[in-house]
């Protein structure tokens, strides 16, 4: 159900770790729960993010929610497409809806694999 090459947080973010860089987004489960996404607030390139801490926020028609970083490091790229088309997060949460790329300052600890995350998501219903 969830891509096995990603790692996950209980708060429904994902990280794809390739070498010393991680791509970060939110899961298909999260976007489904949020409904139509209308705005994504992301940090600037060069900002520092910390695992478990807020790195931005996301708004849907009905609610606003915080985004928590699955990794620690420096933001090296931000998905500018989400400015005009936040619905990409609904349409392609694991692809075109990615949010930030982070140059890792530390190895992330305690992230969930796909199977563990799926168990976690099930219990959220």
């Amino acid at each position, binding site marked *: 159900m969830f891509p096995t090459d990603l790692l996950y947080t209980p708060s429904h973010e994902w990280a794809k770790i390739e070498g010393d860089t991680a791509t970060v987004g939110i899961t298909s489960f999260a976007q489904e729960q949020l*409904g139509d996404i209308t*705005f994504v607030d992301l940090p600037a390139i060069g900002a520092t993010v910390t695992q478990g801490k807020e790195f931005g926020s996301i*708004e849907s*028609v009905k609610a606003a929610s915080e985004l928590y970083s699955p990794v620690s490091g420096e933001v090296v790229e931000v998905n500018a497409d989400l400015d005009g088309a936040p619905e990409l997060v609904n349409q392609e949460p694991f692809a075109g809806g990615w949010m930030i790329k982070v140059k890792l300052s530390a190895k992330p600890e305690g992230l969930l694999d796909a199977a563990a995350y799926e168990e976690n998501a099930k219990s959220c219903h």
Partner: protein
Amino acid sequence: MENLFVTPLNAWHKAHGAKMVPFAGWEMPVQYSGIIAEHQHCRSKACIFDICHMGEFSLKGPGAKDALAKAVTQNLDTLAPGKCRYGFLLNPEGGVLDDLIVYRIAEDEFMLVVNGACIDSDFATIASRLPAGLEFTNISEQTAKIDLQGPASLEVLKGLLPGEWEKLGYFSFVKTAFGEVEIIVSRTGYTGELGYEFYLPASSAGDLWEALAADPDVLPAGLGARDTLRLEMGYPLYGQDLDTKHTPGAAGYAGMLTSTAEYVGKPRALDAPEKLIALSIEGRRSARHHDVVALPGGEVVGVVTSGSFSPSLGHSVALAYVKAEAADAAEFVVKTAKVELPARKVDLPFYQGGTARKKLNG
């Protein structure tokens, strides 16, 4: 979700992928395919809405008009049979207990349509204001309400019902037949689009819903799209934009209070230490209910009562109560949990393209 009321269409909603939420004591669909898709479909084609949670009362008997005119704000002297009118139920202080539509069914017969959360309290309040000898009945349980809204509504309905309703003007209605049962077709709605509200026996709700849903131009829409559609028109939602702390005058309805009857709350119905204003916000970030409204200089002057991203306009809009002395300012700032959003006061409706008042040939 326990102890929630369910409408006759509850099983249909669940079978068709609706996300169900508690609303005003009812388990209701908030969305099917998605709020924005449903919203856009209603503005371009047509959507159906299950509104069975709303309440209906019947009032009959000699003198019903004069008695009702003392209970609600509607001017009933100028309301002919076959017409309906929006207005308010007030407390003695002029505060809004509910907003409601009064239908004049016949010379001495009316139907009142009230909000789902207010059914019991409205019924008790109105009953206490009526003299003995009138037949006043809560018909909410046996009455289903389904809304068909959108520019394609007329064409959709043509295939379904005999044509007496086709010439209806805005805020007019007719009783006709849907198969074996009587149905009221009312040219009204809560979206700003051409459309109809239907009242029929609850036992026939499923048949009408299925027949409407079978039209390829029709999609079911939930309360989420209903809320964004009504907000784009600036229509108030009871419990947010209307409440007992504010009068019709404060909410911007002074011009509608033309009744010459001495209805409860009338002496104070125009009191307006605060006024409801419409705010246009640049950008997609939304103001939300309870966000603080300030003047650009920082002085706090009010609070947001409704706010959302507007799917039709591509930016956010809000309604807010602000102190009367600040209500004429052109620029405001909405303080959300995270940021301050510059907001500009605008005239309603936010969305100007609605087809609700469209003149129909006939």
